[in-house]
């Protein structure tokens, strides 16, 4: 057992920590939420130059050959200042969907430019009726000549409004499959949809849209399950950063805000609330570490057990931290102009993505590990 970081990981952490502090304060996130893109294309390219976009992607495709643990280190730092670039969307969802579901050649072709920061990949898996089940979809794929044609609608495809490459799930005769739909493809319309945290997603309409099969037909169920576990683990890591920032922002407020002639942090009920926030943050951190370490595991039970535990913890403990952080800030906590309201929104978005508390508790309880040894 070894919970320490490798030298590489230490360096990633330090670089990222310095980046968010110097180059990406919350003010940047605040500013960009009103832009058309929702992020800064130059910063995204810079992330490519730093090698960050390839961290959890295979060396063969130009990546760093790392794991979700490496990506988690970055995301935790990004969470601390709400870095708006589409790391979760393009690298984790887009990139790792290809890792799990595309051939080596397809990976090399599509991942390469994204890793450089030249292109954005987006995964369009959800539909209006799918809630958190990636197999509950109705989009249909049919052969058309050499390629395929997809008809259906996808919602909440993170980053799809600006994606160069879309990875789309659809039901073919062989079962659920993944497809590549290029930007501007015939039959493709992407509507930009705002998200609560100031980000953007795409509502993707496919009317016989021109598509290319990725990997084997009918084999995408496992790939989708894996990439959504990766993404859930990533959301937890980012949530750790959000919670950590809110915790210390709140502690600082308790130390400086005076009422009745004393800093309000002397009031024991508020102290204990801050302690509960600290405990929740620490517990989230631990489960997030485990989830990201197990995200790469081929043992589906081990993996889902760890990911679901962490994601449930995000929705309970993580939300507790931002809700109580807001409460302890009093009136200014519920203004748009105070940063804590941005953190609050980001945490709530992370909760809603890739399965809420109930979804993951139920999944956890349905795993064979839950009844092992009875």
């Amino acid at each position: 057992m070894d919970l320490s970081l490798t030298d590489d990981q230490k360096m990633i952490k330090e670089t990222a920590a310095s980046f968010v502090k110097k180059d990406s304060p919350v003010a940047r996130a605040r500013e960009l939420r009103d832009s058309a893109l929702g992020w800064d294309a130059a910063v995204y390219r810079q992330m490519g130059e730093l090698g960050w976009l390839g961290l959890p992607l295979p060396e063969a495709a130009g990546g760093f050959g790392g794991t979700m643990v490496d990506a988690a280190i970055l995301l935790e730092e990004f969470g601390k200042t709400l870095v708006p670039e589409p790391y979760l969307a393009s690298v984790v969802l887009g990139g790792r969907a290809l890792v799990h579901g595309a051939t080596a050649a397809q990976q090399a072709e599509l991942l390469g430019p994204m890793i450089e920061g030249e292109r954005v990949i987006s995964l369009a898996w959800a539909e209006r009726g799918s809630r958190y089940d990636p197999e509950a979809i109705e989009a249909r794929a049919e052969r058309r000549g050499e390629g395929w044609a997809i008809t259906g609608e996808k919602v909440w495809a993170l980053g799809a409004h600006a994606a160069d490459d879309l990875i789309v799930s659809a039901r073919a005769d062989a079962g659920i499959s993944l497809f590549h739909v290029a930007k501007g493809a015939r039959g493709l319309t992407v509507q930009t949809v705002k998200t609560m945290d100031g980000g953007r997603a795409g509502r993707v309409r496919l009317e016989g849209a021109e598509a290319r099969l990725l990997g084997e037909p009918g084999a995408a169920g496992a790939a989708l399950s894996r990439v959504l576990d990766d993404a859930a683990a990533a959301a937890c890591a980012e949530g750790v950063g959000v919670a950590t920032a809110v915790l210390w922002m709140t502690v600082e407020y308790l130390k400086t805000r005076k009422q009745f002639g004393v800093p309000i942090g002397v009031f024991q009920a508020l102290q204990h609330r801050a302690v509960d926030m600290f405990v929740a943050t620490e517990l989230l951190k631990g489960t997030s570490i485990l989830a990201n370490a197990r995200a790469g595991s081929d043992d589906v039970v081990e993996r889902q057990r760890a990911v679901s535990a962490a994601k449930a913890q995000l929705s309970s403990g993580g939300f507790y931290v931002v809700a109580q952080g807001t409460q302890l800030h009093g009136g200014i906590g519920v203004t748009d102009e105070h940063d804590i309201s941005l953190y609050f929104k980001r945490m709530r978005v992370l909760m809603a993505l890739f399965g809420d508390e109930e979804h993951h508790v139920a999944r956890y309880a349905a795993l064979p590990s839950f009844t092992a040894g009875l």
Partner: protein
Amino acid sequence: MDLSFTPEEEAFRAEVRAFVASAMPPHLAEKAAVDGHFGMDEMMEWHRILYAKGWVAPHWPKELGGPGWSVAQRFIFTEELESAGAPILSPFGLAMVGPLLIQFGTKAQKERYLPKILSGEEVWCQGYSEPGSGSDLASLRTEARDEGDHFVVNGQKTWTTYAQYADWIFCLVRTNPSVKQQAGISFLLIDMKTEGVTVKPMLTSGHTPAFCDTFFDNVRVPKENVVGKVDQGWTMAKALLGHERTLIAAVGQSARAIQRVKHIAQATRCGDATLLDDPLFRAKVARLEIQLEAHRMANLRALAGAQLGHAPGPESSILKLRGSEILQQAYELAMDAMGQNALSWFNEPDVVPPDEHWVPSVFNYNRATTIYGGSNEIQKNIIAKLILGLPQVGKD
């Protein structure tokens, strides 16, 4: 003991319900149906409709324009209006400064202000909190300097909700800087059009207008605008707090919010059935509804006390505590029910179903329910001290 309303009260309920259904203009009803945010103009439109009906001030004496209802009727009226999703009227005139003037105002003040509050001709806002004085109101620093026949006011008020639409503001100001804390404060009415008053609106975290900062830069205020006596503003503030505390329970609002949760859940597919059929989600909703049931009983018990003539005491702090928490939790459940649709933020109407459109905004802003009107922590301090009689630091 009889827990039912009388036939007369039930008939009254039906009358209110029918009136609301027929009197609410279509554009308001449409917004009510999705619990959208009502703008100030819409609130005032509804104000005038109720005024025309004679129902705008349920708790005012009949001779001053109140409808002369019993406590039970007022409860029913509030519950019905909230359940219908009608715009919640601005409380600053009708529920706050109005009743205070009725109790403590001079004849001239009553004649000058009350009719226009009632008709909605003049809109009010509240100037209590300051940047450094939130829960600790007694430490306020906005100063009213005595200049003979008038005061000159300087300072800043914050959380002056809807000040950008207000004609008048009632303020707590320091008229005597040499005495300590509560002693030197006066209750002052200030015309917002006076020179030197500026308002800086802010957005709430739900991206709706509400809060403002209001600045006073050498603002002249005639001395006749003091309510009560000079330096007795603290007494005024406490008296104001006592008014209609049972109305803060928001029972109807929460009932409506829970009904919305059920609606959304019923329309949401989850596995082979709907989310409302999911045992875990359904139990969560049921638990909250049971909490609301318990809260409603607490409200009715407070009401029963009021019927017997007991003034609402510190136990009404429970109503604030639980009412605010339940409403907040109902919107948390609505967000849960929405699944990924909870990501939505002021998008075009067809991105999420109409039922869900306003939920994220209200969810965000509803974090304020446990903060405003005396934060829940302050309510607990009140109960600890005044009901439980627990010792206070340094005073045992």
